[in-house]
Every structure is written in structure tokens, then in C-alpha cells.
């Protein structure tokens, strides 16, 4: 255990320690990932006093998540693995706002990350950290998006990659990860079964499984989506942020990001309400919120079209619950039908093609506006975290809307008027 002293032996980097989220014990920032006393997760603590980061400095940097590198847990910048993740568009969405009866709505479009999802953010940080810590191979447990993100960054780093996925994972995501050269281990069972096997594997093999045994560093990458929103909206806080929740790690990262930007004086306060969105068929965090409990009871067999959110035993569930309550926000869930409608609405009004997790964000936002929990005058930023190309199965009903004709103008006329 160490006290509040800056780590020694590094030329750069501002990580002070890893701190237990339950008992508060602190550890040197090495390969440790769970508290040795109570097994609770650890989080990265920064030496904020030595960070000098200002708006001008950030403004002139590369348009990737690494523009905020002082608030990422990397000491050796030579080891950074960058395939261009981050600094994705934040666009005002007037047509969607009108459809949802809101005045001011922005979409943070993370579908345009290099592998098509926000997971490039934590994967970029984690694979960089794996190199820095001297690991010779990386991997992850994944519902699909992280598999591709980790595999792509591993490819760039020249490291072997092992991904553990549940056997029902969408084909596009599996093939994408395989194309980057990863070894795909498809586990017969749920995501939680795959995750447990990966946890056992991290004990047996010298692999950095990014969301398992280097998780404290990994989750830090997701903060950058919130840093960007604050910067893009004019160095201030939005009133509401809608975040899809699987493990709850993204929502926790957003909350930590806002607190850290406040801590170093880049924004004022943390007054954003966090809205956690889950699919009904796997909504342990939203159900805990609605039933006003402190505990998150796991779901044994998740059943939802939003497979990227089908995590029955959410690792950050209780922390996401606390962050939502602390921010005076809400958690809500949407049915599969509402999710698909949400995806279609987003595509048809704003030209953004999202996977079902994006439909979950839209559907939950729609519900909360209808319920009066979010008023028409409130400003909302909605996170769209993964591309529709990854879940083409969901759009298969559109195949029947294709009109095939002979190449002549009479047939064209018939087709258009038909």
C-alpha cells in the first residue's frame, strides 16, 4: 500500500495510485486489478496538482482521444496505440428533436470510431497500457464490440489477441474481430459465462485481458467521450446525457470524467443529469433504480435484441446506480419493439445508422420525455455507441422494401409509382 505520493520511475504520466472503490486502500499502479483485501474493483487516482491542462493546449492537439492524455493512465507516450479513436462528431439533431418533442438535442455519434463503436476508446488505452506493462498478448471478454476494438488495436500493436464471446454473438462482430487476426473463443453460454472463463484464463496465462485484469486502466478510456462532449458544446456541461448501460462502466466513466474536468477547472461543477438506458430483457441496473434498492440483482439469462448490452451481472452496476442517483438522473428500460423503432427513427431523421444499443438510448429518451421526467426545454445529449453495420440482422425486414426492375425507364416509372 502506498500513501499520496507520485509514482516514481516514470518521466510522464500523472497516475498516483490505484484505489479500492470500497475500502479505500491504495496500491501502486501496476498489474493489480482488484483490492487484495476485499476484492472490490480499483480505480485510477491522478495527481491533479501536477496536471497543467488548459483549453488552448487541448484545442491545438490531434483530433483523437489522446488530446486528453494527461487524464489517461499512460506514462510512456511512446507506447500509445492509436488507430484514430475518438473526437467523434457531436451534432445537433433538429428533426429527431422534433420527433421526440424536445427543443435542443445533440447526438454524440460514436458509430464512426475506427471499428464502429465507442469501445475503441477503452481498447486504445488498454492495449497501450498492456504494452507499457510488458504484456506479450492481449484479449477481452466481449459481447462483440470490444472484441473488434481490442483485436484492431492488438493488430496495430503487433500483439496476439484472444477474445471470449458468448456463442450467440452477432456474426458481423465475430467476423470483424477475426479479420483483425484475433483468436476467437466462442463460449457456449451467456456473456457472463464467457466473462467468468476469461477471468479464470487471466489467472492461468500471461495475457492482458483488457476488461478483466487491466480493467482499472481500460475503463479510463471511456471518459474521453464525455470530455469531448464538454469541449464540443463550448466548454460547459450539457443538462442531460443519455448513456446505454451494459456493465454500467461507460456511465461511471462519464461521471468520473465530469468530476475530473471540474477538478482541473475546465468546466464548472458537475450538474449534468445522467440517464442510464437498458433493454428490458437485461435491465438489472434500471430495475434496481426503479425499485429504489442499493443492490443490483443479476439476470441469469438475458434476452434482448440489444446484444451488446446483454450483460446479466453488470460489474459496475452498483456504481452506475450510485452515479445516476448522485447526478439526480434516471434509469429506464425499453422493450425490443421500442428499441427497433428507436433505431429506425434515428436513421430516418438524422442519417445515423446505429446498432440496437443506440435504439435503447433513443427509446428511453422518448419514454422519459413522454413521462415528463425530461421536459421539452431541457437540453439532451444522447450517446449512440455502435454502428448498425454490426447488427445487420435487425434490419433484415428492410430486404422486402427493395424493388428489383429491368434496366429501362418504363419499369422505373412503375416502380416509383407503385
Amino acid at each position, binding site marked *: 500500500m502506498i500513501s499520496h505520493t507520485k509514482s516514481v520511475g516514470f518521466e510522464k504520466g500523472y497516475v498516483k495510485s490505484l484505489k479500492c472503490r470500497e475500502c479505500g486502500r491504495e496500491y501502486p499502479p501496476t498489474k493489480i486489478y*482488484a483490492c487484495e483485501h*476485499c*476484492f472490490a474493483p480499483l480505480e485510477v487516482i491522478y495527481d491533479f496538482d501536477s496536471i497543467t491542462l488548459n483549453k488552448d493546449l487541448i484545442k491545438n492537439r490531434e483530433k483523437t482521444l489522446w488530446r486528453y492524455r494527461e487524464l489517461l493512465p499512460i506514462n510512456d507516450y511512446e507506447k500509445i496505440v492509436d488507430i484514430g479513436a475518438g473526437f467523434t462528431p457531436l451534432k445537433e439533431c433538429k428533426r429527431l428533436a422534433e420527433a421526440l418533442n424536445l427543443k435542443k438535442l445533440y447526438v454524440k455519434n460514436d458509430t464512426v470510431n475506427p471499428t464502429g463503436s465507442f469501445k475503441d476508446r477503452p481498447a486504445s488505452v488498454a492495449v497501450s497500457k498492456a504494452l507499457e506493462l510488458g504484456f506479450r498478448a492481449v484479449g477481452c471478454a466481449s459481447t462483440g464490440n470490444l472484441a473488434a476494438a481490442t483485436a484492431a488495436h492488438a493488430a496495430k500493436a503487433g500483439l496476439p489477441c484472444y477474445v471470449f464471446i458468448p456463442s450467440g454473438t452477432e456474426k458481423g462482430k465475430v467476423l470483424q474481430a477475426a479479420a483483425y487476426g484475433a483468436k476467437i473463443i466462442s463460449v457456449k453460454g451467456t456473456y457472463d459465462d464467457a466473462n*467468468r472463463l476469461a477471468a479464470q484464463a487471466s489467472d492461468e496465462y500471461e495475457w492482458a485481458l483488457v476488461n478483466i485484469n487491466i480493467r482499472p486502466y481500460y475503463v479510463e478510456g471511456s471518459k474521453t467521450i464525455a470530455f469531448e462532449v464538454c469541449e464540443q458544446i463550448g466548454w460547459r456541461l450539457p443538462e442531460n446525457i443519455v448513456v446505454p448501460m451494459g456493465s*454500467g462502466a461507460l456511465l461511471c466513466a462519464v461521471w468520473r470524467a465530469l468530476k475530473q474536468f471540474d477538478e482541473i477547472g475546465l468546466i464548472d461543477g458537475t450538474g449534468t443529469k445522467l440517464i442510464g438506458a437498458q433493454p428490458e430483457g437485461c435491465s438489472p441496473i434500471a430495475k434496481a433504480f426503479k425499485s429504489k434498492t442499493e443492490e443490483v440483482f443479476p439476470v441469469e439469462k438475458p434476452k434482448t435484441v440489444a446484444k451488446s448490452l446483454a450483460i446479466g451481472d453488470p460489474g459496475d452496476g452498483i456504481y452506475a446506480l450510485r452515479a445516476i442517483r448522485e447526478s439526480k438522473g434516471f434509469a429506464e428500460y425499453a422493450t425490443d419493439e421500442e428499441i427497433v423503432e428507436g433505431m429506425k427513427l434515428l436513421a430516418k431523421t438524422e442519417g445515423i445508422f446505429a446498432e440496437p444499443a443506440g435504439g435503447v438510448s433513443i427509446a428511453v429518451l422518448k419514454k422519459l420525455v413522454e413521462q415528463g421526467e425530461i421536459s421539452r426545454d431541457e437540453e439532451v445529449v444522447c450517446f449512440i455507441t455502435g454502428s448498425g453495420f454490426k447488427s445487420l440482422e435487425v434490419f433484415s425486414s428492410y430486404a422486402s422494401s427493395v424493388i428489383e426492375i429491368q434496366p429501362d425507364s418504363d419499369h422505373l416509372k412503375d416502380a416509383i409509382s407503385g
Partner: protein
Amino acid sequence: MGKVNVALFGNLSKITGEKTTFVDASTLGEVLNALVERYGEAFRNRIYDENNRPRRFINIYVNGKDVRFLNGLETKLNDSDKVLMVPAVGGG
């Protein structure tokens, strides 16, 4: 009462010095008691919190099934059943 195979991962196995062991028990609660008896106070402090409840961040499985979906510490065990104790790690 049956001979139950117990596998320990992460820091749990660092305390016990072994990753697998066998205990005679008919419920999961009896397995934990037997392990505490064998490995002592240090092990007890790792698996139980200050209120003597199993710690939230250790997941326990019987034959691959999370005991939260069985009967928790009351879960009945038979000869050759496999108990797995793994620190709960995030995922997602």
C-alpha cells in the same frame, strides 16, 4: 455428505497456496466453513466481510452455475460437485 472439488482463482489461491482442493460437505456453507478451518483467519477475512457475510466481490459457482441463482450458501452439494470461487471482475 459428498467429496466436493473446490477451485480458487485470483488472490484467493495466493492465500491458500493451492488452486484446487477437496472438502467433505453437503452444502455450500459447509464448504466455506471447511475452507476457513483449513486455511485460517486470513482466508476468513478475505471471504467474509465485517458483518460475517460473504463478500460481494467474490462470485461462487456450483457446477458452473452462479449460486445467486441457486440457494446461496444453502445450496445442496453431492459427491464430485465442482465449486468455483472467482473474484468478481467487471467485464463489459
